[in-house]
Structure formats: C-alpha cells, structure tokens
C-alpha cells in the first residue's frame, strides 16, 4: 500500500512490502517519522522540509519501495529537494537490488574499508607482539586459549552493539560517532605528529617483544583450570585491549555510514594479513611503519569525525560526500605543517642548547 497526499507529503510502506526488521531512519527538520515492525511512515509538512533527510541502510524491501517512490516524484518535479536526491544516493549505496543497479563503490566506502583495515592492522601488530612474547617463552596452549577467549568477547561486542546502533536516529548517531571519532582520532594524530617531529619516541615492536619475553620468563608458575594463568591472562588482556580499539573504530566507521559489514571486512582482512605476516616472520612485525600508519589512521578518524560530527548537528557539506576528500586534504596539510613547525622548533632548541 502506498499513499501520497500532498505530493511528497506522505510515504507509507506496509507489511505487504515486507516486515521492517531494521528501522528506516529519516532525519530532517519538520519531518515526523513513525516506525514499527509493520509500517514506515514519513510525514513532512512540505517537500522543502525533506531537504537534508537521510535514508541509511534499512530493510531492502522498504528501500526499494522508497527509491521507487522518490524516482516517481523526481520524474514529476523538475527540481527535486536536495534531501530527496541524497536519499536516493544513500539507498543506492546500501546495495544492489532487483532494480538492477550494481553495488556502488564510492570514495567513502573505499575510505571506510581502508581506515578500518589500517587501524585494525596497527592494533593487531601490537597484540601480536604481546601474544608472541608470551607464547614463545611459556608455550602456546594457554596463550592461544587466551587469544580465543578475547576474540569471542570482542565478537559478542560487535554482534550486540552493531544492530543496537541501527535503532538510533542517524543524525544523533553521526553526532555521537563524529564526536567520539574526533576525540579518539585527535589522540592518534597528536601522538603521530609528536613522534614524527621527534618529541616522542617511536614505538619499537622489537623492544616491546623483548620486554614481554623478559616478564614472561620471570613470572611465577600459576596453574588454574588446567591453564598457565599468566599466559592466559596476558594474552587475553592484550588482545582484548588492542581489540577494543579495533571494535570501536569498526563500529564507528560502519554504523555512521550504514556499512558495518564493509568495515568489519576491512578489519578481518587486517587480521588475516597480520597473522600470516607474523607466522612468516616468526617474530614481531618490527618493520611495519607503525607511526606512518597511525598518522594515516589519525587523519582518517579526525576527518570522518569532523564530517559526520558536522552532519550530525545539521551542517550540509557543499558537494555532499565529495567534500570528505577536501576535509582529509585540509587535515593532511595542517598536520604536515604542524609536524614541520615542531621539527624546526626542536632543531632550533637543540642548536641553542649546544651553543650555550
């Protein structure tokens, strides 16, 4: 059933079009949304009120209906509201369907996968160092059980939080995710700039590995539940703590754009690459350019955070998603300039210190 009193005023999809399992979110000023398992109702006072609305991932059958409806509206209107065009683009991004359109790979999805991959890889390299340090010295059984237990906890977190976030209105979600990504990403970026300018020591995986080995060798033999408790707890905590950052980034990247699966795939690819590299190297991955990767991840987190945070408070980016590239370029330039300025300052201070 579909009714449309007053042009674009009302859209109704009922259960004949398929039960709504995921909430279809529409965020715009003056737009009322009423969602339950049987129907999606979008009411707007006028077509203009739909400007800026978003339709992220939702039940594919409802998306098909909404797209078809908006297409019909577009054919009848020479100049559609920006929000409608955006809604169609968003619903197109959600995947292929029986309208025959292929899955759209755009810049944002590529950046989401890249960001999730790089952030996960760098955290997994650190987790691998901890696991190797303990496993090599104290044996693999308890260590790998610790890794497995932490992985299960992380998987449960993703499975529980991912769908739960789907029920939050997209504007609120993007504001919260944007703010968190900004706070989190700026930490990475700040440390990476301090490291690249020489104000903070570079992270040394070989050194961490040796420290882990020394501690593992010195730890007392404590057996509980048939496990070497030291190996189990160190591996569990190491993987859990490093993995939490991965989970946070994957969920944040994935949920704000409705591509949780893509972000998770990026993280899974990183896991495979790091594990294979670790097995081949038979040691810590000390040659991975960690600070460069952290610099890149910090830039992506900060850029996405700014983009989604601003969208969450109602900003309309000129050029829509294309402006994300501009935001990234802006932060690249700012970060490189800051890094250069700090390096110069350090050299100046060192020269002055040597002369005194």
């Amino acid at each position: 059933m579909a009714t449309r009193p007053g042009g674009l005023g009302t859209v109704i999809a009922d259960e004949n079009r398929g039960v709504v399992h995921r909430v279809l979110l529409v965020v715009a000023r003056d737009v009322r949304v009423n969602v339950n398992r049987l129907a999606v109702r979008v009411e707007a006072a006028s077509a203009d009120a739909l400007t800026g609305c978003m339709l992220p991932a939702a039940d594919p059958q409802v998306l098909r209906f909404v797209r078809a409806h908006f297409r019909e509206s577009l054919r009848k209107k020479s100049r559609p509201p920006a929000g409608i065009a955006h809604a169609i683009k968003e619903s197109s991004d959600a995947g292929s369907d029986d309208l025959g359109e292929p899955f759209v790979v755009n810049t944002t999805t590529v950046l989401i996968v890249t960001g999730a991959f790089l952030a996960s890889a760098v955290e997994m390299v650190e987790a691998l160092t901890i696991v190797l340090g303990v496993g090599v010295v104290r044996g693999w059984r308890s260590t790998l059980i610790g890794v497995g237990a932490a992985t299960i906890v992380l998987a449960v977190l993703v499975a529980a939080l991912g769908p739960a976030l789907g029920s939050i209105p997209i504007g609120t979600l993007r504001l919260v995710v944007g703010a968190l990504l900004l706070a989190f990403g700026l930490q990475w970026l700040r440390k990476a700039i301090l490291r690249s300018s020489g104000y903070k020591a570079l992270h040394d995986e070989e050194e961490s590995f040796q420290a882990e080995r020394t501690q593992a060798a010195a730890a007392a033999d404590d057996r509980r539940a048939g496990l070497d408790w030291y190996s189990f707890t160190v591996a569990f905590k190491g993987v859990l703590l490093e993995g939490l950052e991965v989970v946070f980034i994957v969920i944040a990247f994935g949920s704000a754009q409705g591509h949780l699966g893509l972000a998770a795939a990026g993280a899974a690819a990183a896991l495979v690459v790091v594990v294979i590299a670790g097995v081949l190297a038979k040691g810590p991955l000390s040659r991975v350019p960690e600070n460069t990767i952290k610099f890149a991840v910090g830039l992506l987190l900060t850029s996405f955070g700014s983009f989604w945070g601003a969208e969450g408070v109602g900003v309309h980016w000129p050029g829509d998603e294309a402006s994300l590239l501009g935001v990234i370029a802006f932060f690249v330039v700012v970060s490189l300039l800051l890094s250069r300025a700090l390096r110069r300052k350090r050299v100046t201070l060192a020269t002055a210190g040597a002369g005194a």
Partner: protein
Amino acid sequence: MRYLRSFGRFWWNFIVGDDWRVAAGVAVSLGVTSLLTHAGVNAWWLLPTGVALVLAESLRRAVGRG
C-alpha cells in the same frame, strides 16, 4: 568501588586520553557549529577549523611541557 573507578579510568583514557582540553575543544566546536546551523548559518567550515586549532594548541602545550 575500586573496579568502578578502574572502569571509569579505562574509558576516560580510551576516549579522552592525555589531554582533556582536546575533547573539551571538540565539544565546544561542535556546540558552536550546532548553534550557528540552527541559526540558519551553514557553518561547514567551523568544525575542521576549530579541530585544527585545538590540535595546534594541544601540541604547543605538549612541546612546552617537554
């Protein structure tokens, strides 16, 4: 109580990190952007600019300490 404090400290370090002023600056930038947007100004430029200033100030303080 000890666990609760550890739990809170973990999340504080996780989200806020070394410099709480960065998180506060982000919150202020978002707040001002929101106010301007709701006043009818499409202030897309404000948040990246505010974030860049917050980052520069945080680095200046970190280097000054060091």
